[in-house]
């Protein structure tokens, strides 16, 4: 859980640009340190003033929630509050079920914590915090009261009040004092995404781009889509204006993805025509594409103004049918006509989508929101088997600790259990848990050492809150400062947690070195065990096992596109494929064979999947289509689905033959065009299917 503020460009000073950059970075870091200290001490003071039992719980909450961006804090706080309430309710229920049976109690608690840790790995945004906290609160509410079941309710009320107070203070402080807005970052990224895409579309005279460049562009565009969705989910907590535009932003992202897919299909089609012996058709399509490019170039000043672009694109879309008819007249051969019609339909679809995208982007920039738009969701490709491994690992850790505690009668077993609970959840979501655990461990241990100095050397003379701050602030600020250094992920967070936890501020303060040392040893043991569990049962995030499964799931999306219920399928398909694609690519080495094959498959899945969805929508919308045509088209899609499910040469031949048969049966224009596009995608000799394509013989190429 490193909290790293994104470095934005700094106006470089003329003589020492590195100094200006350094100072800007330091300035940002120290603002964060100041805010963290303010929030932590304010929370401690309020907790003491309200006479809560353990001000340290409030302080720990603040130190977990604080983040340089206020939208992140608010998002974290929101999910944290939900997690806290769920966890405390479950803790109470558990205690009332097993007040006397300690074994059953600890077993169910371990299971609960394990499930929560699994949930934390399943979600990659701040929802995962909610899960960590649901587990942690159940433990923190029930464990200290385990010897006194009657007091569990009071204990629960106290813990929940302390945690909620901490959340409140952290949220207010980070939102009011020098707020660093994620919104600005979101606006910049959205603008950059728009500009990137528009430039990309304008500058690529369709068909001229090498496959490799297209794959890389597709990767960048997919990344932008996922990143934007991540940010949107946090910013809605920070900014009511973004919240009011949330539905629109989701729709914008979906339209963007749809337009990217259409563009890429069109590009591949033209590319194939050029290579496959129909350059005249390809030239006609490129000529048809030209007005689109000129609609996107209204002169440098207005180049990225969505409202201007949308108006120009609208004019372009209106003129397209006439241009298509004019171009079509020059072609005579039936195959060339079919090829041209497919390309023209695709081009028209793309132009319409691009116009809608630009228009929606324009409406987002207005001060007022008018009307309402269609609700869509960004579907995530969460990895369930990976999360199950996390559940198993956490359960084993917790069960082993419980068994050891029960068998040995260790008085500080509670502390060990609590620490293991927190860190199993927090580390489970980290991409490299073993090194994160090591870093956190060092941070935690040095935090405890610092706290020892504070409690037994500096604190005893103090008699009011100001001198408490004076005694501890110097050591406290190390933690937040370290957490702004991205070279040391986890150290800062570990330090702050260890420091605050073992400091255990109370009113009045208790000094008991024996208790301090025992507690410290138990906490370190708990943390170490949580980390060691990751060595015994390694994390699956980014492992080749997970990649293989996600890769298979990516191909499986083409099967879903051919078979799943149509309701909302187009949106689901586009977002899920990109999310999966982005996840797999994150962990492959750029330029490796694996990465290349991933990119190629993603493009193939997107093109065929989208075409099949369009085809199925056509079939569903038009009831006049003859049953025979309907059957052959469905059979063709099923053959393609089988091919994507388990690609091999035999299935490729089946699919090719089925699509060929369907084209021969279908007389209706739009249906035929979609089928032809499917066939052309299958026969693409730069796609992953290249290995299955038999060497061309004249009649097989021109058989359509």
């Amino acid at each position, binding site marked *: 859980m490193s909290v790293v503020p994104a470095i934005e460009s700094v106006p470089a000073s003329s003589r020492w640009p590195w100094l200006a950059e350094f100072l800007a970075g330091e300035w940002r870091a120290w603002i964060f340190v100041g805010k963290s200290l303010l929030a932590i001490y304010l929370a401690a003071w309020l907790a003491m003033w309200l006479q809560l039992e353990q001000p340290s719980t409030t302080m720990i909450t603040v130190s977990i929630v604080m983040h340089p961006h206020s939208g992140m804090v608010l998002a974290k706080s929101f999910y944290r509050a939900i997690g806290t309430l769920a966890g405390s309710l479950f803790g109470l229920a558990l205690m009332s079920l097993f007040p006397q049976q300690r074994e059953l109690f600890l077993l169910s608690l371990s299971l609960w914590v394990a499930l929560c840790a699994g949930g934390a790995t399943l979600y990659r945004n701040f929802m995962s915090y909610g899960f960590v906290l649901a587990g942690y609160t159940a433990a923190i509410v029930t464990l200290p009261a385990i010897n006194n079941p009657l007091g569990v309710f009071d204990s629960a009320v106290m813990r929940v009040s302390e945690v909620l107070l901490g959340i409140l203070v952290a949220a207010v402080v980070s939102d*009011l004092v020098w*707020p660093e807005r994620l919104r600005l970052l979101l606006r910049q990224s959205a603008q950059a995404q728009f500009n990137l895409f528009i430039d990309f579309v304008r500058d690529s005279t369709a068909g001229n781009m090498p496959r490799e460049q297209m794959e890389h562009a597709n990767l960048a565009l997919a990344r932008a889509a996922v990143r934007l969705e991540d940010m949107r989910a946090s910013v809605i907590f920070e900014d*009511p*204006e973004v*919240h*009011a535009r949330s539905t629109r932003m989701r729709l914008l992202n979906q339209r963007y993805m749809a337009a990217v897919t259409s563009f890429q299909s069109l590009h591949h089609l033209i590319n194939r025509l050029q290579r496959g012996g129909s350059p005249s058709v390809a030239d006609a399509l490129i000529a048809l594409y030209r007005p689109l490019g000129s609609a996107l170039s209204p002169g440098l000043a207005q180049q990225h103004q969505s409202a201007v672009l949308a108006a120009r694109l609208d004019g372009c879309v209106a003129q397209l049918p006439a241009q298509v008819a004019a171009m079509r007249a020059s072609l005579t051969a039936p195959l060339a006509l079919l090829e041209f019609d497919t390309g023209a339909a695709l081009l028209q679809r793309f132009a319409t989508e691009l116009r809608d995208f630009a228009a929606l982007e324009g409406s987002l920039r*207005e*001060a*007022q*929101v008018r009307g309402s738009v269609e609700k869509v969701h960004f579907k995530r490709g969460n990895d369930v088997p990976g999360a199950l491994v996390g559940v198993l690992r956490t359960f084993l850790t917790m069960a082993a600790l419980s068994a050891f505690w029960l068998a040995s009668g260790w008085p500080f077993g509670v502390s060990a259990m609590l620490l293991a609970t927190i860190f199993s959840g927090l580390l489970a979501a980290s991409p490299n848990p073993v090194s994160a655990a090591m870093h956190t461990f060092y941070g935690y241990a040095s935090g405890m050492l610092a706290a020892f100095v504070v409690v037994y050397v500096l604190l005893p003379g103090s008699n009011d809150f100001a001198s408490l701050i004076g005694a501890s602030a110097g050591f406290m600020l190390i933690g937040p400062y370290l957490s702004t250094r991205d070279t040391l992920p986890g150290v800062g967070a570990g330090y702050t947690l260890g420091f605050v936890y073992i400091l255990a501020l109370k009113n009045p303060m208790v000094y008991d070195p024996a208790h301090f040392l025992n507690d410290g040893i138990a906490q370190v043991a708990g943390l170490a065990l949580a980390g060691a569990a990751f060595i015994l049962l390694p994390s699956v995030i980014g492992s080749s096992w997970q990649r293989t499964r996600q890769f298979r799931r990516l191909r499986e999306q083409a099967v879903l596109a051919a078979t799943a219920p149509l309701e909302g399928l187009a949106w689901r398909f586009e977002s899920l494929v990109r999310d999966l694609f982005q996840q797999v690519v994150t962990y492959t080495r750029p330029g490796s064979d694996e990465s290349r094959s991933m990119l190629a498959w993603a493009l193939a899945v997107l093109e065929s999947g989208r075409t099949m969805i369009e085809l199925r929508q056509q079939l569903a919308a038009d009831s006049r289509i003859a049953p025979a045509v309907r059957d052959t088209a469905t059979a063709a899609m099923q053959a393609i689905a089988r091919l994507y499910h388990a690609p091999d040469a035999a299935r490729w031949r089946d699919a090719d033959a089925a699509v060929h048969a369907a084209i021969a049966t279908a007389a209706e224009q739009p249906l035929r065009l979609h089928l032809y596009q499917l066939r052309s995608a299958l026969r693409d000799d730069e796609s992953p299917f290249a290995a299955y394509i038999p060497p061309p013989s004249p009649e097989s190429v021109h058989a359509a």
Partner: protein
Amino acid sequence: MPHEIAIYGVLVPGLLPVFLLCLLLMVLLDMLVGRLGLYRQVWHPSLFRLALFVCLFGVAGLLLIH
């Protein structure tokens, strides 16, 4: 208005439901103001929102207690 109310035998402060209602009201207000873009007119939007919420909650609490 009672200072404490019992929910299934658990005593909670009477202000809690008021607080929750105000929170709900605030969300609705936020949505309206966000749609109209009025937050662009104030200097410190989050301070303004906090102050607005304190006013809402304070007025509601005082009205109900008196």
